[in-house]
């Protein structure tokens, strides 16, 4: 059952991701990206990672993409829709992509750990939200706080940059 779900959502996610690039209309692309995020969240949930799956929906599908859509709709779409497909660019892109895929597979195959089977995670009896909280606030407390300060700095930076009339 989980295998069927895995393949269904993987195919959906990849198809939507390809659709993001293929569609000429930016709104179609943005909505395909939302679909891709939702399928990815479903994949997380099939792994019992409910917290990450829901945060994926909440942050990316629910907030970031709404802002994207908001901006796209305020822009002029006509020019983007009229743009034609550039065959040379497409061929070049596919060649680079293929070469990179071969490279990655070769590297992974050459690694000694590539055939190892990883043990399944031990169940602690707590919800995964609890586990993530404990890990973040105990083992990784300092990195967590550093990330918090970084985010604060970037927020202040955005506010400063967006104030055009700053003297």
């Amino acid at each position: 059952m989980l295998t069927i779900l895995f393949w269904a959502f993987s195919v959906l996610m990849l198809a939507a991701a390809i659709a993001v690039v293929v569609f000429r209309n930016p709104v179609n692309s943005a909505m395909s990206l939302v679909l891709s995020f939702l399928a990815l969240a479903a994949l997380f949930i099939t792994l019992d990672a409910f917290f990450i799956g829901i945060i994926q929906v909440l942050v990316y599908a629910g907030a970031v993409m709404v802002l994207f859509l908001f901006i796209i709709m305020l822009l002029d779409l006509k020019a983007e829709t009229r743009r034609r497909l550039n065959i040379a660019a497409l061929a070049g892109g596919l060649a680079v992509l293929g070469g990179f895929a071969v490279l990655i597979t070769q590297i992974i195959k050459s690694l000694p750990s590539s055939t190892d089977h990883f043990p399944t995670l031990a169940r602690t009896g707590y919800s995964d939200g609890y586990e993530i909280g404990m890990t973040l606030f105990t083992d990784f407390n300092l990195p967590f706080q550093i990330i918090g300060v970084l985010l604060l700095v970037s927020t202040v930076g955005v506010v400063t940059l967006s104030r055009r009339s700053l003297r």
Partner: protein
Amino acid sequence: MSLMPSLDLFLQPEIFLVWTSALKTFVILGVVLTMVAYSVWAERKVSAFIQDRIGPNRVGWAGLIQPVADGVKLLLKENFVPGGVNKFFFSIAPSLAMIPSILVLAVLPFGSSLFGVPMVIANLDIGVLWVFAVSSLGVYGIVLAGWASNSKYPFLGGIRSSSQMISYELSLGLSVVPVFMITGTLNLGEIVQYQVDNGWMVFPAWFQTGAGLRDMTTESGSMFGLDLGKTLLWIPMMISFVVFIIAMFAETNRIPFDLPEAEQELVGGYHTEYSSMRFALFFLGEYAAMIAGSGVIVTLFLGGWSLPFVPDGSQGWFWGLVNIGTFFAKIAAIIFFFLWVRWTLPRFRFDQLMKLGWYVFFEVALINIFLTAGILAYLQS
């Protein structure tokens, strides 16, 4: 005797889970859709009462069959699609507006238990996050409807709606953080159970086992367990409750925050170009969102299915049914409050709405988190 093997099959744990979940889903969907239809009727009756009119009274006794007549009318109208619209997004937008509010119902514990079956469709450990994640998807229906209509007024309505929802989602999410800090869980069922044991979030005075916080037992067993801890925590809870309920008004696009469909400025807002059943889906989606939102308010702050001195479903099926009835009665009370506000208050201006969200509620919710943390630290020391 030939029935016995098939009965055994139905009682196998996995199959039992499947058919009870399906049954619960259908029943809740039926109940909520009926409530949606009758909240439209209630809206008209309450508005009539407030404005000293009579309201619908022709179809059935006191107009009680009016929702059916409205539904048939909307189904039979011409489903007109204007020229120049983006047909795909124009047709899926109404469904996208309706579905998220229905999905929220999946995690709400609408009763304690009935014959040992817990009365919640999906008992997720992260129930509250599910509510926020799914309801944040509701904005797509409105934004896409506004954009796909290829017309000025719907577009402005859609843009307003997305900025409004993004702004108020912040205060909505932040305002409930104190609830989790006190209960120590994100599971809605456990939050309700905490309120059964310790008193409702907004009214913590009475209850059988008046123990203070979960991990510090004070004078347990008292009937009126109002101790120092509860009294202090009652302050941030009330702030949370007020911020949450106001943000919920903005999330469900209800007056005084129904700017996306401000009639005087935007005709019908995002659904100006819609007719027939597609319009009906937007209309019903708004009421379904209101019911789901009321359900969340009831679950988080008003004790869910619990009533003081009423046992839960483990004491027999009668009490299980009473619990379910209590939950829906509380939702009906909150819906009445929504209607009452709609027909009493005027609409905000759009810049006032945004300023209120960013300058007032966001900060209040943030300060409230620190206040709760401070009180908890003081109580535990």
